[in-house]
């Protein structure tokens, strides 16, 4: 065998479109060799599961997870996806990959051998590396536990249905689902102090007050009437106890709703946990796909260079790859926003170019990485430490902006015209880049809605505040319905106000 290894030209791993387990295994080993030894990727162990198109549809409807609790809304998306698929409006994905340990990677039986190879390079190594290394995934998701947790959730909800009836459970789930987007923690919650620590802190404060005490203070006239001060104090105390303002509405309702039973709270918790698990995916879509595309492109080319795949296979791959990373222009009928695969892949390739083959412009814009000849390490650093917003802000080069011919359009809905704000020229690079990054920012992706006040001593009404970004109110019909759902979970009156953060004025109020 040693003699065979010396040759750069190896035997093709497979020929033709047919695949079997032996071939898949061989390809996987070959890919792994390149991914681990040459690129130095760091991945979870992989579990490849072969499924049929029907099972792929099943997986679609349970948000891509191998198991999920039962709810009619999953059936609804199944019916919709199925109809779309059967009528030929949309194809199916070639793979689904799950951020778990081991990393589960579904591949479809209909795929050709080349597709299976591509899919393994893309998902089992590209996405897998990203899941394991990106800081957001590390911080917010637990790949080791997710499958067990989903199993627990499924069983728990099934048990609740048995005990309290499907209707009751459905009600809670409906309401919780309506608040899914508002059920994620965006920063870590303050650790609760235990009783001893609280007592200790109180003592310290008393001690401090004593040490600062001076008879003179007593002689100062009181500024506020004692009554209002006391009420203020009570309110502040309460707000602090409840942790207001709170942007995780599901968390707040789970902990503080006066009307929910324990099982209902647990269901809110389940929905919240699942939402939290998916939260990083939304913020890293561009990078995640970019990373996976870069990895599969690199690996497929290496396989081809070493003669491990045939020219025919390479052609099939290139045909597919070009279609995936195509970016239609804004005026094309196929345009539906920026394709995360296209921009992601282009940015990764661009970084590689800057590292290996920089122009003067690149040296000026990226003095840290230009010409360092360590493309893959540079990329791995980026994959680890950024999310879409910061990644674009950091790495989008003028070269790429020109290539994509990016321009920024300002849309003020009160005016009859859009205005072209800046384009891909010297004056515009920074503005376009900032505007594009802002599109991927949390502020733009997520609405800022918080519980701001709860009247626990009076009529128990709850006031929510929506801090508007760019003067955008909420879609009224939907908002009214969601408010009705919040009311169901809270049990008492709920009001939601859209507030302009600049003037603090209430622009719009929603109620059920």
């Amino acid at each position, binding site marked *: 065998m040693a003699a065979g290894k010396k040759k750069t030209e190896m035997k093709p791993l497979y020929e033709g479109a047919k695949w079997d387990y032996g071939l898949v295994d061989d390809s996987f080993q070959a890919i792994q060799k390149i991914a681990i030894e040459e690129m130095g990727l760091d991945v979870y162990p992989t579990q490849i599961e072969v499924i049929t198109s029907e099972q792929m549809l099943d997986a679609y409807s349970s948000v891509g997870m191998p198991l999920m609790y039962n709810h009619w809304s999953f059936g609804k998306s199944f019916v919709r996806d199925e109809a779309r698929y059967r009528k030929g409006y949309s194809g199916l994905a070639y793979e689904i990959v799950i951020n778990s340990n081991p990393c589960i990677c*579904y591949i479809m039986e209909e795929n050709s051998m080349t597709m299976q190879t591509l899919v393994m390079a893309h998902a089992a190594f590209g996405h897998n590396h990203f899941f394991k290394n990106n800081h957001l995934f590390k911080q917010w998701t637990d790949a080791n536990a997710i499958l067990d947790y989903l199993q627990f959730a499924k069983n728990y909800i099934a048990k609740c249905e048995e005990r309290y009836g499907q209707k009751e459970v459905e009600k809670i789930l409906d309401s919780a689902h309506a608040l899914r987007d508002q059920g994620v923690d965006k920063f870590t919650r303050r650790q609760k102090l235990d009783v001893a620590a609280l007592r200790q802190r109180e003592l310290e404060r008393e001690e401090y007050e004593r040490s600062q005490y001076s008879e003179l203070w007593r002689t100062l006239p009181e500024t506020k009437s004692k009554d209002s001060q006391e009420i203020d104090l009570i309110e502040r105390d309460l707000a602090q106890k409840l942790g207001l303002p709170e942007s995780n509405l599901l968390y707040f309702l789970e902990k503080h709703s006066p009307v929910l039973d324990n099982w209902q709270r647990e269901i809110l918790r389940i929905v919240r946990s699942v939402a939290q698990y998916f939260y990083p995916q939304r913020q890293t879509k561009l990078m995640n796909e970019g990373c996976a595309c870069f990895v599969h492109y690199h690996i497929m080319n290496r396989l081809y260079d070493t003669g491990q795949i045939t020219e025919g296979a390479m052609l099939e791959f290139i045909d597919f790859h070009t279609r995936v990373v195509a970016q239609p*222009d804004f005026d094309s009928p196929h345009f*539906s926003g920026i394709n995360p695969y296209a921009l992601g892949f282009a940015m990764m390739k661009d970084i590689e170019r800057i590292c290996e083959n920089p122009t003067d412009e690149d040296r000026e814009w990226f003095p840290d990485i230009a010409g360092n000849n360590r493309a893959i390490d540079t990329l791995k650093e980026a994959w680890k430490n950024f999310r879409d917003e910061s990644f674009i802000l950091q790495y989008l080069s003028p070269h790429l902006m020109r290539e994509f011919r990016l321009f920024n359009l*300002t849309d003020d809905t009160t005016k*009859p015209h859009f205005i072209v704000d800046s384009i891909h020229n010297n004056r515009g690079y920074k503005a376009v880049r900032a505007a594009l990054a802002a599109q991927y920012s949390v502020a733009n992706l997520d609405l800022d*809605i918080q519980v701001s006040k709860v009247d626990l001593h009076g009529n128990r009404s709850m006031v929510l505040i929506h801090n508007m970004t760019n003067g955008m109110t909420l*879609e009224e019909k*939907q908002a009214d319905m969601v408010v009705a759902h919040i009311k169901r979970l809270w049990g008492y009156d709920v009001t939601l106000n859209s507030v302009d953060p600049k003037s603090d004025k209430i622009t719009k109020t929603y109620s059920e």
Partner: protein
Amino acid sequence: MMHIIDRRLNPKGKSLSNRQRFIDRAKKQIKRAVDDAIKNRKISNTDGGERIKIPSDGLNEPRFMGDNKKGTRDRVMPGNKDFMPGDKIKRPPSQGQGQGGREASEDGEGEDSFQFTLTRDEFLDIFFEDMALPDFVKKSIKEEVVHEFQRAGYKRQGSPSNLNLKLTMKNSLARRLCLHRPRDKEIELLENKITALRKKKKPTIKQQKNLVTLLEELEQKKRKRKVVPYIDPLDVRFTSFTEVEKPNTHAVMFCLMDVSGSMGEIHKELAKRFFMLLHLFLTRQYSKVDVVFIRHTHLASEVDEETFFHSRETGGTIVSTALEIMQKVIKDRYPPEDWNIYAAQASDGDNLNSDNANCQQILTQELLPICQYFAYVEVWDSHEAEMFPDDSNVTRLWQTYDEIRQTHQNFAVKKVTKAEDIFPVLHDLFAKDKKSEVA
């Protein structure tokens, strides 16, 4: 490091229970929509699919969403052609708010409002979901099986008349391409070259050699053309049909209506709706339903649909005349041993007092024994109904018929005062668990 698992044999239909839940939830809404649709329908447009829109309350998954029509936003887009900073672009007409504009559908239900078209059959299935033919008169239902052909994909063998040309040629083309069958053009080109070479009077050695190779090539290509035929038996596909058995049952429905002066337009409209629904229901059960219209004053006659509903007659009211005509029509055209006979009678309850006994006699002696089902609907307009709210105040005809009802299971009497009542009444008549109710 890697496991590979074959999940293909796992039980299918993991989403089955979720799908069932969704359909259950949707069904209520579809049913409501169907009921609404039928209420507002004309007799003439019962054919063709009905667009049913599920109102989204119960199937909606609301979320907080930003209102796309408010505020300002930046949008970075690729593919700039000739825009310069500061250019103004006219806002495209409302639908293309850039984001695709599908968030809000016409009535602002949001993107969740599902719309799908039910076929006529699905529509009627849902509509008549919990209704069935009364099965207490099980006599000589004539059932013969008819065979019908249905398309069933393609097959390799078949009769020449079923040859599927398109598919056959497609296969042939694919095979010829794959096996590199030489084209006419290639051969022509070769032959031209050869003739050109042959024409040369003094060919050089090189040309001679060339000629030999060309001849060989031509020979080879010609041979290949023989081996790879233009159309091979392999390519041939036939459209396939299978025979499906269909039960052939037929029914006749008699519509009897009082058209005397006391029947106003409102009464007739109500009666018409009732007849229409009954007709629809019967067409669900039988492959062929004949309808016979009989109208009567003090005289009765068989008429066509148009006259039945729209022309006016004056005169007294003698119900038995209509029953006699029905009897005659049955005798002439619809032998009871071959036909399922249904009758629906609509009247405002007026009748010549002396005639009631007559009616009773014809019905019990002659008609009811041969009818599958006989329904009598008394139409009152709502004013009348308000004036005589209690059941004690009934018409003579009603009294008579009510007596018959008590002794005959296949006879039913109902009262209808407004359009909304019609479906429930029909529903009562044919409710699936009617039998247990009677018992």
